[in-house]
């Protein structure tokens, strides 16, 4: 980290909505310091969908909560900056904001919406769907209760909720998982946010419902031209929805690029390994799925050098286990954090 927090930051390019630079979030625990997020950089432009992929525990959720300034209370902001461009055009340095600051409370729900993984428990069990949406609308907009209610019904219609006039007065326990996730999305979209953070929004759903919710998010994204940070551990889902992808491993972004670059020309051995571990139609005849060898290291003992080296098929002893790799930037803008990025190509033919 070379940047002092006091140095003026160069303004973000005009199309930029969100920018994370070298964000570090650590947890002091009884067993040692957990560097859950260890220098994450990514950005999202207006109207763009960024997919964040990585195995569970790689720091996706903690990073996302830092954008909302809702990280667990024990978390330490170790490094980096998070910036967001408000609807007014001004930049907010979110990382310098207080958890409960006025600005953050305006941003949350007002300009940044969030959808969570657990539709069964993420809605208040003691309030109707309508009440929850109406309260959010009235918090951020100067509207009457009747107007807010009309808006709630319009939102439910927009997320293709069946019988929105009826559902608005229902409690979450009357709804199926898929319907709850639709309600959750309606809630997140209550005030037309420029950015939607969706943290594994379909992980808890069955495959059919998952496809429906993905379809819904895609159409809403185009209709409203909002940006989405779509977090998942499932590469297949990302291919469906994202424009660009960031791959995370042990608290770092190890590779970023467009969907095509990531899927057809992955430059990082971890991305390559992840891709080979997903089943793909038409290509799997007689082929055994490769799984990544070894286990995700526990967060207290992150390997030295490149943290992927104990599991990497291309690691070079004396280099990878000693030196931490920097981002290698390619002409297209694709980036990979590997000493040998681009030199190790997967050969689909060999599969």
């Amino acid at each position, binding site marked *: 980290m070379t940047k002092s927090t006091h140095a003026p930051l160069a303004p973000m390019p005009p199309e930029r909505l969100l920018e994370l630079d070298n964000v570090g979030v650590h947890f002091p625990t009884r067993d040692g310091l957990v560097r859950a997020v260890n220098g994450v950089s990514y950005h999202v432009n207006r109207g763009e969908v960024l997919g964040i992929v990585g195995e569970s525990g790689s720091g996706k959720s903690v990073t996302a909560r830092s954008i*909302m300034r*809702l990280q667990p209370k024990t978390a330490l902001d170790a490094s980096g900056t998070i910036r967001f461009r408000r609807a007014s055009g001004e930049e907010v340095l979110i990382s310098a904001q207080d958890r409960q600051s006025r600005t953050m409370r305006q941003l949350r729900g007002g300009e940044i919406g*969030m959808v969570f993984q657990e539709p069964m*428990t993420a809605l208040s069990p003691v309030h109707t769907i309508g009440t929850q949406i109406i*309260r959010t609308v009235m918090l951020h907009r100067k509207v009457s209760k009747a107007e807010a209610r009309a808006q709630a019904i319009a939102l439910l219609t927009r997320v293709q909720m069946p019988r929105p006039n009826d559902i608005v007065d229902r409690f979450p326990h009357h709804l199926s998982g898929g319907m709850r996730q639709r309600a959750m999305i309606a*809630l997140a979209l209550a005030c037309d946010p420029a950015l939607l953070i969706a943290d594994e929004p379909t992980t808890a759903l069955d495959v059919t419902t998952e496809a429906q919710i993905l379809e819904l998010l895609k159409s809403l994204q185009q209709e409203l031209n909002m940006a989405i940070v779509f977090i998942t551990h499932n590469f297949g889902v990302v291919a469906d929805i994202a424009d660009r992808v960031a791959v995370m491993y042990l608290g770092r972004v190890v590779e970023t690029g467009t969907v095509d670059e990531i899927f057809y020309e992955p430059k990082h051995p971890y991305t390559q390994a992840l891709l080979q571990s997903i089943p793909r139609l038409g290509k799997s005849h007689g082929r055994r799925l490769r799984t990544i060898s070894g286990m995700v290291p526990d967060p207290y003992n992150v390997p030295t050098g490149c943290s992927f080296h104990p599991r990497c098929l291309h690691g070079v002893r004396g280099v990878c286990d000693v030196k931490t790799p920097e981002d290698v930037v390619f002409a297209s803008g694709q980036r990979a954090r590997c000493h040998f990025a681009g030199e190790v190509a997967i050969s689909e033919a060999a599969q």
Partner: protein
Amino acid sequence: MLGYIVRRLMWAIPTLAFVSFISFVIIQLPPGDFVTAYVAQLRNGGEYITDMQEALLREDYGLNDPLLVQYWRWISNILFYGDFGRSLEWNAPVSELIWERLALTLVLSTISLVFTWIIAIPVGVYSATRQYSAFDYIFTVFGFLGKGIPDFLLALILMWVAFIWMNLDVGGLVSPQFEGKPWDFDKIVNMLSHIWIPLVVLATGGAAGLIRVMRANMLDELRKPYVETAYAQGFGERTVVWRYPVRVALNPFISTVGWALPALFSGDVITAVVLNLPTTGPLLLQALKMQDMYLAGSFILILSVFTVIGTVLSDILLALSDPRIRFS
């Protein structure tokens, strides 16, 4: 909702019939009866009573009739004439003996319950949202002390403090000179100087336990995803905490309001005895010792009615507050 309430009330009727019968039987279970106890007391006092006289007494009181007949005599008078029978020991109508005490107990219990809630809920919520803070530790200690010190001991200490340091005369509900006088301003003032001790005793004991429960419930609820959702909607901390998790964490309390009622009628017996309060507890204790069956039976019946009403009441409140319960 209405159907739910009616259904609950319908169920209360067989419950009450059953409870009244069982309690009547249980009162008669110990060997001997009221006459045995009464005669023993007289003989202890030096009087001479023949077995013949004892048998006549028993016949007079109708104690030789079969149990069912006795039960029916008692319950039918209550149902048809509102007559709870006579207390054998006090030789007075039961209703005369108990209503004033019931009213006082009800007032005392309600006030202490309200105090308990007013103290315990904010403290429990604050302890949970500031877990491991100095505030939290102080009230944890208070909680253990409050639970650990028996009520009667606290009552004795407070009486001693009030008597020695504050020059108040203690014990009873009013000072002797007001006993039996009609209620006027002076008597009410005098009562207030007495009533704070039982209130403090009852409220601390209750609050201590309640704080721990509220804190634990809140800690559970604060971890739930819907709390994070509420923050992510842009609400401030106070709004989030009081509107969402507190609502849910209160439900276990609401479901026990009903039990608080009878518990307060009977649970404060020792405190009431120590403080010499004319509440129901000491009277019931005495009635049971003497096998004064109509008095004891009526008492237990009234307590049961309160329990059943309380339970129905808290079920209804719970259904109103927690939509997941409704109609199921």
